[in-house]
């Protein structure tokens, strides 16, 4: 399956990418995060990160669909 990924803040600095298209073997957002963490050596675990699909927060066990836009959100610090 192929999905689109966008990166922000600490993740963007680590992988040096704003966005990319990713193709691989995964079903849920959690599966995808595991693959991406390995690829870029992200050290934040799933308790520290929140996933979003198509500009909305989602659960880690949400299934992904072809061409979904996925964002992994490191700890926020607004205000």
């Amino acid at each position: 399956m192929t999905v689109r990924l966008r990166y922000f803040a600490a993740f963007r600095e680590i992988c040096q990418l704003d966005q990319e298209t990713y193709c691989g073997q995964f079903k849920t957002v959690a599966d995808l995060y595991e693959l991406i963490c390995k690829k870029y050596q992200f050290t934040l675990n799933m308790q520290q990160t929140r996933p979003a699909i198509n500009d909305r927060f989602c659960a880690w066990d949400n299934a992904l669909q072809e061409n979904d836009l996925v964002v992994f959100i490191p700890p926020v610090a607004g205000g």
Partner: protein
Amino acid sequence: MSLQNEANTRAKFMLSQGPVHLEYQHSCSPESGALVSFDGLVRNNNEGKDVLRLEYSAYAELALHEGSLIVKEAVDCFALQAALCSHALGVLEIGQLAVSIRVWASHRGEGFEACRWIIDQVKSRVPIWKKESYTDGTCEWVLCQHVGHHGH
């Protein structure tokens, strides 16, 4: 359409390029007895480090969606006449406005509670990140360093 517009006027979340400049209009509705405001300013120190400046970055699409949910929830839960919130993006210097919140309520009790609730929610739910630059030349994404050791 008209109702939708009214709801948007009563509860509004915005992102500002650069420091926030929220117009200071005190009156809102003849039923409002209290306007409670919170302005978050860039402080010259954080967690013992001397801050030089900082930079806010956002996932704008989701930040606007989540921020709008927060102000709408506040209007409903605290029976407010209106709630506004604007958050800065980009580079900010010491003393500049990072976030402004305005809440109009019938009584001061709900006003204070709602304003406090909104800033707490914005800080914990809205995908905005802060990169602090220190006077020693270093910088870091706040809360994103070493979180494996002590959580967030």
